[in-house]
């Protein structure tokens, strides 16, 4: 009889060990998951930063001025005479063309906006649903009336 009792205890111990192994196995998989999310976040923030820097450094069709220079003129004087439009219109056209040729074509929802000067704030662009998680990047553009905050949000 005591031998049977010992066997039952051994059986219970085996079951407990098996359950513990299962739980440890599950925990391992649950803990591994966020790494991919962090990687994705990093990639998206790099993409947003790269896009903003590249867009602002692009030479426009307006007297060889860069998009940054167009925005600076748009925020203060609007003195640049471009072939088709003023500096604000030219900057808006360039930014829209660049974003639709990249993010929109890659089916990535985005929101572009500028803060800091009324004229420049009229330049905005967006595509897709932006109600979920957002990866945001902001580049400052200095002007004589203050600093423009140029922001690109990538939406998930």
């Amino acid at each position, binding site marked *: 009889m005591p031998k049977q009792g010992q066997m039952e205890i051994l059986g219970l111990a085996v079951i407990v060990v*098996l359950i513990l192994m*299962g739980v440890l*196995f599950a925990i391992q*998989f649950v803990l*591994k998951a966020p790494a*991919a999310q962090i*990687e994705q976040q990093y990639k998206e923030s790099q*993409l947003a930063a*790269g*896009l903003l*820097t*590249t*867009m602002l*450094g*692009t*030479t*426009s*069709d307006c007297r*060889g001025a*860069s998009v940054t220079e167009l925005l600076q003129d748009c925020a203060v004087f609007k003195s640049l005479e471009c072939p088709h439009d003023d500096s604000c219109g030219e900057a808006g056209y*360039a930014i829209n*063309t*660049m974003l639709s*040729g*990249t993010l929109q074509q*890659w089916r990535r929802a985005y929101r572009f906006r500028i803060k800091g000067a009324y004229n420049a704030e009229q330049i905005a662009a967006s595509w897709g649903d932006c109600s979920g998680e957002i990866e945001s990047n902001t580049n400052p553009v200095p002007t004589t009336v203050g600093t423009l905050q140029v922001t690109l949000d990538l939406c998930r």
Partner: protein
Amino acid sequence: MRRAQIKMFETLAVLVVFFFFLIFGASFYFRLQESSLEREFDRNTQLRAVQIAQKSITMPELECSFAGVQRENCMDVLKVQAFAELLATEEAFIDYFPVFQYSTLTVRQVYPSQLEWVVYNRPRGEQSTLLQIPVLIYDPNTNRHQFGYLEVRVYA
């Protein structure tokens, strides 16, 4: 005789239940391992794509530098054209295979006009990972920075 038979059936039932759990657990484990291996494989292909893209935008054969200072995320269009021509020769193709491996590198210009240059093309199979990095495409002839992106497709 009957007691012994009952004991035998009991042992058999325990063994059936044990093996049922063992097979169920093993199939569950192998399925998870399989998906984990697939994820790891995808991750490695993505990392390879990032590596190739980073190498491409920083290599002297393609980057743009001013007075010896390299500009970030910038490619010289004349270098791109010359390098694409060079890689069309078998000798150079073999030399650069360790760098680009099985991949396709395309530089696409988005603004002011849409153009594209296939720099390197060595496809393999159907499965691939795509990575796009925004770049400035510098044209030394006009001293303008065009907006575009480097598209890297890495084959598994």
